[in-house]
Each structure stands twice: as structure tokens, then as C-alpha cells.
């Protein structure tokens, strides 16, 4: 059993246990017998036609799970949704990754996939914003765009026929991420939504929830859309921000970033699926309690967040009825 490594006292342990019990009763899937482990047979009606999906295999005419997870049925498709696993990319996903290698016309990124992803020089916008062929000179200057160990945000473009993954960064909102923190959580805890870029205005912080479980919390940067800027004034535009941005991040900003990052850490250790709304609620809870940033990782705050979440989910399920 996955135990939380928290020093809890007696009351905290009971409160946490009670919160988890509440969550368990609220969860529809956990109460049904949909959870399976490796080599458990899955109940299907063999007379009906069915399609076996991911995480299943055929064993002597019997449908068997190959991973631990929850059985999902969509029309005829039967598959097992695994929980803890590496990221499975889908075209169009927004991911955050770290550059591991600068190679010929491409960068290799670690994105928690079974292989490194590839970002081609040709599938990303040049810093000058001009659309043109990439020359040999551009290739030599690749390190001026991204270097090893840079954190980069991009979109999943497609799978090559050999199974490798291609990324693209064809907009100003993608690209190098600076002045912030990268958090790595389990990919199953990131909720898929329409919006994965969030600008938290009250803090002036950008939050990027990468679908691969890499979460970026950093100082807000103004997105310059290359489509609007015509080429005439693009030269002066690109020159100005360098001078405007100070080389350091203000203390207040760093505190905001740390507070949000710690909120994400707490939610991740508790194993709650997260979106920007839940993260903000957790941040607000911590600031309304006047909690120090480092105290957010203490056991008391974990218990509070768990109780809060149990309450929130019970409210949501009531509203549904």
C-alpha cells in the first residue's frame, strides 16, 4: 500500500483517514468492481462482439488485464485505464520538457515518455518571427535558441512511422521557459482541459499544466503574437524586452511561485487530480491561514487540504443529483 510519508500525530491521522474514507465513498469507480490488477480476467459478454483496447490481452479466449487500473467501456471497446505509468502522448497535447541533446537540425527532449521526443528546428518559430527556410547558419546557432537542460514548452505534433514522437512550437506561447520552477508529478494527476496555459493575474504568474506531468510555475511573460506584429516594427520589439526585463526576479514574485509550487506538491502527494482551479483554491487556503510557505509541506496542511477536497467533492456530487 502506498503510504504517505508524513509525521502525523494521532488526531491528524484520524482526520486524514476520515477524509480518505469520505473520498472513497464518493468515488463511483472505486466502489464498483472496475479495478483490476495484472492478469485479472475482465467481465465481458463473450457472445456480444467487443473490441479489446489498451491494457488488455487475450488469454485462451479470455479477456485479461495486463496493467493495474480501472476497466473502462466505451460502446464496444473495453480497455484498462492504467493509473501510475509513463505519459502516453496524444496529438495536440501541450507538454513541458527538458532538452537533453542538441543534435542535427533537432533537439531531443525528455518528456517522461518511453523515448525522448524530437523537436525539429524546422517545426519551430524563429526568434525573429520571420517565416523562411532554415539555413546552415540557423543550424549552427541552435544553441542560441535552446541549450541542454533548458525547459521548453511545446505541442505534440505527430508520431513518426518508427514510433518516435515529434513536437512543434509554432507559436509565441511555446518556447523556452525561464524564471520559474518545474514540478514533476504523475501524468494521471493532470486533468485534461481546454486550457493548459493559465495566467494567474493576481500573482502575475504563468502556470502551465503539461499533460506529461511536468508543471511549470513561472513569472508571467507577455505573449507577443508574431501574426499581429508586422515585420517593420518587429526589429525594435525584439530589442526592447531584453532591457526592460531585469535580470532578477523580485522576492515577492519568488514567494508567489513557491507558494503555488508547494500547493501542487501537496496535491500530488495526496494523489488528487488537479486543474488550475483546485491549485488556486489550495493556494488561497494557505494564504487565508497565513501559513508560511515552508509550512505548506507540513502534515497539518496536508490534512486540511484532504478535508477540504472531501468536502468539495461531496458538494459536487450533491449538485449533480
Amino acid at each position: 500500500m502506498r503510504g504517505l510519508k508524513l509525521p502525523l500525530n494521532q488526531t491528524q491521522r484520524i482526520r486524514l483517514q476520515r477524509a480518505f474514507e469520505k473520498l472513497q465513498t464518493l468515488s463511483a469507480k472505486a466502489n464498483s468492481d472496475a479495478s483490476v490488477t495484472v492478469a485479472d480476467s475482465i467481465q465481458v459478454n463473450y457472445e456480444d462482439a467487443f473490441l479489446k483496447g489498451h491494457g488488455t490481452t487475450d488469454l485462451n479466449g479470455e479477456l485479461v488485464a495486463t496493467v493495474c487500473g480501472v476497466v473502462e467501456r466505451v460502446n464496444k471497446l473495453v480497455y484498462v485505464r492504467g493509473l501510475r505509468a509513463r505519459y502516453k502522448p496524444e496529438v495536440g497535447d501541450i507538454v513541458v520538457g527538458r532538452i537533453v541533446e542538441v543534435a542535427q537540425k533537432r533537439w531531443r527532449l525528455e518528456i517522461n515518455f518511453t523515448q525522448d521526443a524530437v523537436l525539429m528546428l524546422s517545426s519551430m518559430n524563429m526568434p525573429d518571427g520571420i517565416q523562411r527556410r532554415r539555413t546552415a547558419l540557423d543550424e549552427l546557432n541552435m544553441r542560441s535558441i535552446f541549450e541542454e537542460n533548458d525547459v521548453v514548452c511545446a505541442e505534440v505534433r505527430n508520431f513518426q512511422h518508427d514510433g518516435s514522437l515529434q513536437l512543434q512550437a509554432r507559436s509565441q506561447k511555446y518556447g523556452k521557459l525561464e524564471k520559474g520552477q518545474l514540478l514533476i508529478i504523475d501524468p494521471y494527476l493532470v486533468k485534461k482541459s481546454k486550457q493548459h496555459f493559465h495566467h494567474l493575474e493576481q500573482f502575475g504568474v504563468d502556470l502551465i499544466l503539461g499533460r506529461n506531468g511536468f508543471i511549470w510555475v513561472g513569472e508571467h511573460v507577455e505573449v507577443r503574437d508574431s501574426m499581429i506584429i508586422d515585420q517593420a516594427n518587429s526589429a525594435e520589439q525584439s530589442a526592447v524586452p531584453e532591457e526592460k526585463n531585469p535580470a532578477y526576479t523580485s522576492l515577492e514574485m519568488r514567494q508567489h511561485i513557491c507558494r503555488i509550487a508547494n500547493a501542487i506538491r501537496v496535491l500530488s502527494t495526496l494523489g488528487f487530480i488537479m486543474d488550475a482551479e483546485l491549485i488556486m483554491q489550495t493556494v488561497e487556503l494557505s494564504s487565508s491561514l497565513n501559513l508560511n510557505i515552508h509550512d505548506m509541506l507540513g502534515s497539518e496542511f496536508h490534512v486540511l487540504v484532504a478535508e477540504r477536497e472531501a468536502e468539495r467533492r461531496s458538494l459536487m456530487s450533491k449538485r449533480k443529483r
Partner: protein
Amino acid sequence: MEYVSPEGLLLDGRRPMEMRQLRAEIGTVAKADGSAVFEMGNTKVIAAVYGPREVQNRSQQMSDQALVRCEYSMANFSTGDRMRKPKGDRRSTEISLVIRQTMEACILTHLMPRSQIDIFVQVLQADVGTRSACINAASLALADAGIPMRDIVTSCSAGYLNSTPLLDLNYVEDSAGGADVTVGILPKLDKVTLLQMDAKLPLDIFENVMGLAIEGCKAVANYIREILLENTKQLEYRRGL
């Protein structure tokens, strides 16, 4: 020396058909993709699985299946007399190989081409049956990492002392010098993936002993599945929605 008392009890109070106590814990290494601690009596091992991930050595990359690697080591403090063992001695290389082959048999490697899976097992407390405990721990860790598998491999040993087949030997029983049969099976498929014996036994007795070891494996499998199911349910209800 008498290992089985007239009342049919062993020196540590077990019955000959009784296993040592099992204990398992999932998710003990935070940075790993999957991890587990497995205890069989006084034997305690920790396993960590990394991957499937990019192959480190390009020349080893296979375009149709995943590369499985395994490293077995014993902590210096794991045995009674603290010994500084060189890394990669014959014994640990052999056990690494045995574990790798056993796990490779159950992982659906063709689903993860061009990647590699690293399994690290370390003995924290060595009694007897580190091989079995390592295989069980590695199975748990692989399942925790969400790696697709045909079945859960489990392993258990059995011995023969005082003309009685004994399940899951402990240190005293093992030092008596009787036969020690280690079996690894795929319980659902009912197939043997590992069979080792370091002595001689008549064929009919060997069959008995091996049957006993297989029963032990099935008991371990039941325990592991229980743990995994509980873990899955826990992750699911905490996640919500």
C-alpha cells in the same frame, strides 16, 4: 540435529507447510517509476523500476522490443558479518541474470519498442531466499510502474530436511545443507519461468518438493494481488472524477 520436532513444528515454530511471514509495500522510492519493498520473514529487499525510457546505449536499442536490464546487489549491512563485497561478483551477476530472464518472460516487451526498462533490486536484510524475495519485489515494482505484463511472476523456495519437504526455508534450515529448490511461476498461465536446485534429490521426492514450492508461489501471488488491488483502488478514489 532435529529440524522437525515430533509435534511437527520447525525450530521457529512454523509448520513444514507454512511460509514465513510476508509483508509488502508499494511506492517506497519517490523518484522511481515503480518501487516496492518485499519481506519474506527476515529477508527484506527493495526494488526500483525505471522506465520504459530512452535507451542509454544506442547500440543496444532494439526496434521491435524493449531492453530489460536488472541489477542485483546486497547492502553491506545486510548480512551478520559486515563485508565489503566488490560490485559485480559472480553470485550477484548470476542472480541479476536470473531475475532479468524471469521478468523478461512476463513483460510484454513488444509494446515498448526502442526503450529500456531498468530493474534495481537491493537486499536490505539477508536471511535465505533473497532470489525469491527479489523476484517478488520486482514483480510488484513493475506492476506499480504500469508496465504491461502477461502475468505476475512469483517465486518461492522449498527444501527437504529430516525426510520432510519444507516450504520457504529460513537461515537455520538452509544451513543444514539439505536441498533447496527455488521455483518461479506465472500463476495464471500455470507456467514455470525459473527452477533452480543446489543439491540432489530422488525424482519422486523432487516432484513433491517442487509441488510444495509451486503452492508457495501461488500463496505469494494471492498476497501480491491483494496488495496491488488495494493500491489501485486507493489511487483511483484519491484521484477522483
